[in-house]
């Protein structure tokens, strides 16, 4: 088994004004993902994140801590959530994330064991 972090990015949109059908579709797609992961491996953790305009970035610049408003990178898409999963290989991970809502861009990153 390998451990992957799946980063979910999408263009900002308003969940609160989404129709009932849209919400139901999102729940069903996340449900299908979770069921697939449970069948082939294990879900370690997951979370949905608040919008990128609530993000704070902290960097060390010339020895000083600099706090700025906003995410790491300014892009049209923002990271809106993540899953950490254990799955046998990349092909299985790709198969799993294709079950998530098609409006997402998904980044699959292997998690390194540093113990």
């Amino acid at each position, binding site marked *: 088994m390998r451990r*992957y972090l799946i980063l979910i990015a999408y263009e900002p949109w308003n969940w609160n004004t989404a129709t009932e059908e849209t919400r139901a579709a999102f729940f069903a797609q996340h449900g299908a993902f979770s069921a697939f992961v449970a069948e082939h491996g294990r879900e370690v953790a997951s979370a949905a994140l608040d919008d990128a305009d609530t993000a704070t970035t902290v960097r060390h610049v010339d020895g000083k801590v600099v706090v700025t408003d906003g995410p790491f990178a300014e892009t049209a898409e923002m990271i809106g959530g993540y899953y950490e999963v254990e799955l*046998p*290989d*990349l*092909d299985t*991970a*790709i198969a799993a994330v294709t079950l998530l809502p098609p409006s997402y861009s998904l980044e*699959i990153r*292997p998690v*390194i064991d540093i113990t």
Partner: protein
Amino acid sequence: MSDAELARVVREEWGRLIALLLARFRRLDLVEDALADAVEVAAHRWRADGVPDNPAAWLNTAASRRVLDRLRAEAMQQRRAPLLVTDSEHRQSRAGAMADTGDLVEDDVLRLVLMCTHPALAPEAASALALRLVLGVSTPDVARLFLVPESTMAARITRAKKKIVAAGIPFAVPGAGLLPERVDTVAQTAYLAFTAGYAPGSGPDLLRAGLAGEALRLVRVVLAQRPRESVLIALLALMLLQHSRRDARVGAEGALVQLADQNRAMWHAPEIAEALGLLRSFGPTPALTLQGAAYLIQAQIAAEHATADTAAVTRWDRIVRRYDALLQLTPSPAAQLARAVAVAESEGPAAGLDALDDVHMPASHRPAAVRGELLARLGRTDAARAALEEAVGQCRNESEATHLRKRLTELG
């Protein structure tokens, strides 16, 4: 004598040996170096002791010993490196066979090809890796093919191998649902290597055309295991037809010779014959992926040229129809331009100019060059000169620019 035999074994068996070692040890980071070491030892040993009865098995044993030495050294250091993933049923079913004589299993080569050409790798890296691991093409040669410095190519290959291990790209054949897509990627990867060999470069082009031929070998390796993959059959036909012209396309002083001006006696007839045979194996409505259908039509267009005894008797009317079909499948400005040229040859320069109106290739000098040529044929010299001058201004390839300037002088 033994050197020649060693070179032959390396050329023919490299991919199978890598695949076999991977199936057994699952350590991509070790097996390539181990096999390279084994080849080096063989070069000395075989010269002294003669070539062994089964040279491939000898190399396999020697390389396996190297891997085992490394694994033992690692175990001593209590380090654990990540293993390459294989599908578990593959491991189980093969567990017995692996333990004994080390038979070469054809299926493992397919696993190796699919691993090297995985869509999670950058196409250029996948292409280079496949040539290196499946065909044993040396890193300097792969670098020459892709026109990059050797150190750049070595880093690219190392990075690709690292990604395979770190990301968990499997050494496995995917399920039937996914396989056609993956075979399409194999085809794209092979064609990328092939076209790299024909990209204009500063080096000796003939040598790189030879390296482009290695891409043909990659297709043959996969076809040997999956003879019915129609996308690969169509691609092989296309590559054979293009490759058959390699000696005729370079003239004295290394200048590019246009298709119409090539000495057709220099085309490789056996390769053309093989390609035509492959094309005949397709029925009127072949079952193909979109990718495969596009290769098939391009091969059929190349076949029209290959079967015309002289440029003058080329069936341009049929070529126009093929381009129409290709554009319906996969519209592209390059195919539109080629269609416009075919229309001009078939129906005259005025019709060609009309067809050219739809072609938009802002970064290329070619539409302007073709327009200039067609205007010249119509006797509209001033307009022709303006178009050719525009083309010269946009042209980045020296030998093509020289050709365009020559045309300008001829216009007077």
